[in-house]
């Protein structure tokens, strides 16, 4: 067990400026104070619904966008100091859409070895060889390398995407809803592949998903986000075994279970608020089944309860 976590994020914030009517500038606070630490061979799941900021978070971590505030440390040292060239060798990303994430005009081996083409001086034959090795790791046959993406199914394309992300031998993979667009049986295959690769290559995952059932099977630590803020964070077994925040409880209760046949009442009413117009106090108070007057006035702070962090006035 490593003493220093590989990736430490402290109070990360991402705001987008927005022009409202008549030139008045507002801000969308997409990510508001997210902190976590990721260790080797660990999976941190980021769970939330639309508008919670998980995609903005991923973009900040991948350096596609720069955070407005906050600190990102890699093995204890500041990440901004690291040149992008080096950064790419540590963190890579798998995308949600298996149909849009591969260039339709390129052959599969070319797609997989593209990171090598850009970042190393390997010869074409070496790159091709590397691509073939990566393909076998994800369960594709060598002859698949010469075909084009449209000849593959969604699950197979996702495998190609995973092989490509592994080309530079990163230590951390950000998985942005990698199985949401796939069928159940294919979903299981891809999740298994991710678990096997984690074991074999000592990978750490930042697994972004809205599907709690999938998260249950892959996560060590779970972070639940609502409107850019962390509402609950802790070991998976605690989050699922005894969820403390009303939003976490509602999410688990709203997720359909295959073993529960009784009619379940929807636990949460109302629409998900827009990040342009966040409610006062606790962002969840308008939809919370157990809200008290304090919730609409005062924003709760994250408190440590056992091994988890919870931000709720009703949890002490």
């Amino acid at each position, binding site marked *: 067990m490593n003493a220093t976590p590989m990736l430490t994020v402290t109070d990360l914030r991402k705001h987008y400026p927005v022009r409202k009517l008549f030139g008045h500038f507002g801000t969308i606070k997409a990510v508001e104070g997210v902190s976590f630490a990721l260790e080797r061979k660990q999976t941190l799941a980021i769970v939330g619904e639309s508008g919670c900021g998980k995609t903005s978070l991923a973009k900040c971590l*991948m*350096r*596609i966008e720069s955070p407005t505030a906050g600190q990102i440390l890699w093995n204890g040292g500041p990440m901004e100091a690291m040149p*992008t*060239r080096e950064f*790419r060798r540590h963190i*890579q*990303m798998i*995308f*949600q*859409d298996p149909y*849009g*994430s*591969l*260039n*339709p*005009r*390129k052959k599969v081996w070319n797609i997989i070895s*593209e*990171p090598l083409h*850009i*970042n190393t001086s390997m010869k074409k034959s070496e790159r091709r060889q590397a691509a073939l090795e990566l393909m*076998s790791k994800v*369960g*594709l*046959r060598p002859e*698949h390398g010469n*075909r*084009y993406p*449209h*000849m*593959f*199914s969604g699950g*197979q394309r996702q495998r190609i*995407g995973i092989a*490509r992300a592994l080309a*530079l031998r990163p230590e951390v993979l950000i998985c942005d809803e990698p199985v949401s667009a796939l069928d159940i049986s294919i979903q299981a*295959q891809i999740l*298994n592949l991710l678990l096997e690769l984690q074991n074999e290559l000592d990978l750490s995952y930042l697994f972004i998903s809205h599907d709690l059932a999938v998260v249950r099977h892959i996560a060590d630590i779970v972070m639940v986000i609502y409107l850019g803020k962390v509402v609950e964070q802790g070991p998976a077994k605690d989050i699922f075994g005894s969820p403390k925040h009303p939003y976490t409880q509602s999410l688990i209760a709203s997720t359909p279970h295959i073993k529960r046949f009784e009619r379940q009442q929807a636990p949460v009413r109302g629409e998900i608020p827009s990040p342009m117009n966040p409610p006062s106090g606790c962002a969840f108070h308008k939809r919370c089944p157990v809200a008290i007057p304090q919730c609409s006035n005062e924003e709760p702070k994250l408190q440590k309860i056992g091994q988890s962090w919870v931000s709720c006035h009703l949890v002490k």
Partner: protein
Amino acid sequence: MKQTVLINPMETIPVSSEPHAAGEFWYFFRKNRGAVIGLVTIGFFLFVAVMAPWLAPHPPSELFGEALRLPPAWQVGGNWRFPLGTDDVGRDMLSRLICGARVSMGIGFLVVFLSAGVGTLLGLVCGYYGGILDSVLMRAVDVLMALPSILLAIVVVSILGPNLFNAILATSVVAIPSFVRLVRASVLEQKTKSYVIASKTFGAGAFRQIFVNILPNCLAPLIVQGTLGFSDGILNAAALGFLGLGAQPPTAEWGTMLSDARSFIESSPWLVTLPGLCILLVVLGFNLMGDGLRDALDPRLRK
């Protein structure tokens, strides 16, 4: 108890045996009869253009003083030595039409090459970078599009001097805006796709993104516009030729032939109808083929 378990997926993943992309394209193209007719017509004229020096029975500029304004061979007074008749200074129509094919097709290719080349480059840059550059360039393109193309061509030629090369230049300039808009729209669409973002995370620079990643995915509308651009180019050059601003005598070019024969519409109609018919057939052929190409290349339009 047996369960369906995970077996090494390497052995069991079949890849769909879809037909090759070219085969699929040809299937849809073939279904459109107009497109095939267009293709055949263009093929014919291309052949004529390439083989012109060997096909033409006489040199196109040779004057036959004894055979002025002879009608086509099947009419009264015609002569099979000059199958399609002769013009007012005694040049063989068939030879002039054949050599004119070379000039006109050549014009079409050059115009498309120039306008597509410049237009694509501008479109790629505007679409990829956006911002001020995009705004300024697109406004310039808008201005260009707002001017009637033939007038603009006339202005350009008047400034540079009336000859075939300048006519080609003028026609190309006039054709650039459609390519710019087309390519820019394609780039904007592709830019949002995950594979472009993925390439960015691997460190792909602008050059690689534009030319290696995005451009190949913009080819379909580009090819269609290119074929339609041929017909525009030929028509515009013919118009310039008709106005005396394009190919100068004695160069055989269909538009100039039309112009020279203006005064003989009633007395020697073949002098006007034959070049006009050639222009019509080539333009129609390109349009039909372009339609078919578009339907075959865009999966959404396939019947």
